[in-house]
């Protein structure tokens, strides 16, 4: 089930909330938690119930490992076993085919179906085991609390990757199932703003991006503006899509009296690449830093090892997004950018923030090309277009209005890979992109807005969200569902 569907908003959510608060009020918080787990499993199983046993088994097994980890006098062995088990499960479902084709390119595909959210609930549980062994999570939670933490539907499918030490105490709180009007209103407000980001903005830019990238995948030759506009649209789509989803998750958790950490903090306003990673998918970045980069040695070792660790961390970050080379390239590019940034900081004074922001933005946008493109060949086709190697074309009406452009651009009636390829697609896309980039570059994000600004934003977006929810012919799934 997806957050931005009528079934979820008008069916699942109200029933879940009413049941949760009613059970909490008339019976006990424990019953409310049980209800929450049941709702979460229903939510998960809606898409494909075949994978429910995997989720339930994974929760049970990790809980048992955590119990043994606490009781045993060899906790490190249990930790190692637990992590290996989780990674083996993830490896089989997500990477088996990928690895098989690296070893034996001609081998037939294994056709392993990727269970929904496996990357998220695996990482979540690895965190729990490590925190238990480190003592960050002080007490072993009851199984019900643990199950509600892992399966908690607001973060189950696509994060944020929340720390057990942040969430478990909230789920164990005595007031968890007591309805609070302010929390529900806050939650609904944040949820609706996230819904707007997804349905109104992300899906609009997604349509523009698909035209260009699909054309590149089919071997079409994209001219300068076609390639740039598709890439700029994709950069906006992925930001609005994932940050919209995260806002909706934060809002849903808030309705249920749970506070989630921030997952996006205006990443395109970052002034350097390290800053970008402190603002983009913050919870994944923090997980990789605390559970991979620092255990590998972090900044405490020599510059060469540090560089190596950074590259390993970012390559794995790319691979976490999907078992494909394009994600590895994307992770590698970001690793390289962080390494360059670190070296620059050692050797030169910081550059002016505006220059830093522009440079970071360009690098991040260029790195989205292999991330989105269907293949390496499509990435190269896209980059060729962006470099102007396929020429510059502009609508005839623009060239007629601004004759100076005739020296650099060929006038054409329509640009076939730009939006809907209509006469007015160029000004339409230009205006949409301008609006999108103005929002991400100049406005505060939902979490930095004042309450008044949030209400004004809702006034601007609510009707458009409802239009998309009830009347749009097609609603695209969240991009991060595939990860």
């Amino acid at each position, binding site marked *: 089930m997806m957050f931005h569907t009528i079934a979820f908003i008008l069916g699942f959510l109200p029933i879940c909330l009413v049941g949760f608060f009613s059970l909490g009020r008339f019976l006990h918080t424990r019953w409310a938690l049980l209800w929450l787990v049941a709702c979460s499993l229903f939510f998960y199983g809606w898409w494909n119930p075949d994978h429910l046993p995997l989720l339930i088994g994974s929760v049970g097994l990790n809980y048992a490992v955590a119990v043994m980890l606490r009781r045993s006098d060899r906790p490190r062995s249990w930790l190692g076993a637990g992590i290996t088990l989780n990674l083996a499960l993830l490896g089989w479902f997500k990477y088996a085919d990928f690895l098989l084709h690296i070893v034996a390119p001609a081998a037939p595909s294994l056709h392993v179906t990727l269970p929904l959210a496996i990357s998220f609930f695996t990482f979540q549980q690895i965190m729990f085991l490590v925190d238990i062994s480190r003592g960050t999570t002080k007490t072993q939670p009851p199984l019900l609390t643990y199950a509600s933490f892992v399966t908690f539907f607001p973060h189950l499918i696509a994060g944020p990757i929340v720390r057990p030490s942040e969430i478990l105490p909230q789920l164990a709180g005595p007031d968890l199932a007591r309805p609070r009007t302010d929390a529900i209103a806050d939650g609904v407000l944040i949820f609706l703003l996230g819904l707007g980001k997804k349905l109104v903005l992300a899906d609009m830019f997604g349509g523009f991006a698909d035209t260009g990238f699909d054309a590149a995948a089919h071997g079409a030759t994209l001219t300068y503006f076609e390639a740039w506009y598709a890439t700029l649209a994709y950069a906006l789509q992925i930001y609005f899509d994932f940050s919209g989803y995260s806002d909706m998750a934060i809002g849903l958790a808030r309705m249920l009296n749970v506070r989630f950490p921030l997952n996006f903090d205006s990443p395109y306003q970052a002034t350097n690449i390290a800053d970008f990673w402190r603002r983009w998918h913050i919870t994944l970045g923090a997980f990789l830093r605390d559970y991979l980069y620092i255990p590998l040695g972090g900044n405490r070792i020599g510059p060469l090892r540090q560089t190596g660790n950074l590259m390993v961390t970012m390559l794995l970050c790319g691979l976490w997004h999907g078992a494909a080379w394009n994600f590895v390239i994307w992770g590698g590019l970001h690793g390289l950018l962080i390494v360059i940034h670190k070296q620059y900081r050692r050797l030169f004074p910081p550059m002016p923030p505006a220059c830093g922001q522009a440079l970071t933005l360009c690098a991040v946008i260029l790195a989205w090309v292999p991330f989105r493109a269907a293949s390496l060949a499509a990435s190269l086709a896209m980059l060729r277009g962006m470099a102007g190697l396929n020429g510059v074309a502009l609508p005839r009406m623009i060239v007629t209005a601004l004759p100076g452009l005739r020296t650099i651009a060929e006038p054409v009636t329509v640009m076939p890979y730009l939006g809907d390829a209509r006469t007015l697609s160029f*000004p339409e896309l230009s205006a*949409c992109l301008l609006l999108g980039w103005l929002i991400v570059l100049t406005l505060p994000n939902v979490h930095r807005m004042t309450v008044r600004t949030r209400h004004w934003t809702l006034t601007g977006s609510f009707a458009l969200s*409802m239009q998309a929810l009830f009347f749009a012919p097609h609603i695209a799934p969240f991009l991060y569902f595939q990860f």
Partner: protein
Amino acid sequence: MRRLLIACAASLILYGAAFTWLLDRPLTLGALRARIEATVALGETIQQPKLVILAGSNGPFSHRCETIEPIIGRPCINAGVAVGVGLDYLFTRWKPLLHPGDLVYLPLEETQYVRPRATSDLGPDATIMLRHDHATLVTLPLRRQIAAVFASDLRAAIMSVIETALADDGFDDPRAAAGGGFNAWGDHVGHTAALARLNQSTLAAIVPVHPTAVQIQAGYGSRLVADFLRWAGRHGVRAIGGLPTGFSDSPIRDDSLTAIRAIYRDQGAGFLELPNRSRYPRSAFFDTQDHLNETAQIDHSVAIAEALVRLTATTLTVRTPAPPP
């Protein structure tokens, strides 16, 4: 919570007001509206028995009333607009102008039979009605009225601003130079074979999608057509179904064809079928499989007109063609 509800209510009010009274798309939807209003206005002036062609853009691009009119001997109006315009809207506009003895020819595009109701409700006519044609909108079901209010998204708002600015600035649509325009009968003219050669690669690449017989039988458009045929039968209007033009290398499947025929025959309406089932080589087209080029349009129109005369021989009286309006 109160502020939240106020914000939501204000948003809905502002949205409704903006799209009903403020935002407009004078270039894209304006062109469609102009076509609809021009053909309706022409229909209002003709009191004698007439032929009205109702379809998508296959109507004006592949049929020529200017050619058909003298052959069938009655005034002809080419009232096809675009495939996205809702059939219920088109029928609602034309019903008051159809009188006993009138002939309606429906060479509808295949997709018009199968387009889902939800998509059909949000077609360009929804926006046109909300902004300019409340009189028709209020006659349609409540569902259609609500859909009309919510037919526009953010892109539509942005396009409204752009189109209004361009229209105010006297924007010269390059499509007119690239593809011709419309004559007084409502036919598209000037889409010559020479201009069509510019679209040769596009035409070669088109892979037409044909709906299945089951889709046609269950289609929302099929239901609307059947309703209209029943209405026509009750009001002495003779409706005749037909086939849209298409590529000869991509024929409509036999079972789909049977399903289309059945829509008309089940309601006692006629069905016109040329020996070539309106299939022509790709070289006869302009830019899509629904648009013949001008030369082929004229040839096809002659064939259609002669077939119409044969089909309606018992009821048609040959008259002197009316002067062009």
